[in-house]
């Protein structure tokens, strides 16, 4: 099993550009999450999904959009990138059982200049 994979690993965007961060899990997990981690800080929940077709906002959703058309994929869309979106982005998944442990991807480091 690959677990949770994220692409790309690194990206530099110019202000106003858009991009999609990809996340795929092969564990058939119902729950998927997007977090951002600013330098020296904890993880802030952007969006989450409890299953295909169902998404909801987390703590910091502004400037982002998500979709969940399949169980495996949970892409995060950044529209009109701003310097405040410079961060490391983590995708995670959970079965909802087994104590709700979240399995994390390796992260995407995004810089907006």
């Amino acid at each position, binding site marked *: 099993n690959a677990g949770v994979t994220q692409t790309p690993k690194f990206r530099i965007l110019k202000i106003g550009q858009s991009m999609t961060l990809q996340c795929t899990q092969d564990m058939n997990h119902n729950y998927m*999450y997007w977090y951002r981690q600013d330098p020296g800080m*904890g993880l*802030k929940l952007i969006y*989450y*999904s409890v299953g295909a077709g169902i998404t909801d906002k987390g703590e910091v959703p502004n400037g982002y959009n998500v979709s969940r058309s399949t169980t495996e994929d949970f892409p995060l869309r950044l529209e009109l990138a701003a310097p405040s979106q410079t961060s*490391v982005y983590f995708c995670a998944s959970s079965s909802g059982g087994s104590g709700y*442990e*979240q399995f994390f991807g*390796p*992260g995407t480091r995004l810089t907006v200049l």
Partner: protein
Amino acid sequence: AQTVTQSQPEMSVQEAETVTLSCTYDTSESDYYLFWYKQPPSRQMILVIRQEAYKQQNATENRFSVNFQKAAKSFSLKISDSQLGDAAMYFCAYIYSTNAGKSTFGDGTTLTVKP
């Protein structure tokens, strides 16, 4: 809304000694899980230990144990016989059982292990 507070931004411990990392949380729910995750310099998040709120017994995983005080909403992590490989950032996290989307992390504690 749930909040998770880690009041120690940085901690250090001598190799082979014991260290305790603090975490407090605030929630109105009664059924939830608490976690400690480790984030080494590689950036990969790794589960260290989990605690179910309805279980009174404190969780233990080898050298890692927790002190869970539900009434006080406190969830500290004790690392015994500290090793150089324990050096990392440690995050306390909360998740609500009925809606596992309600996931909240603390700001982390950076642990340094001195040889």
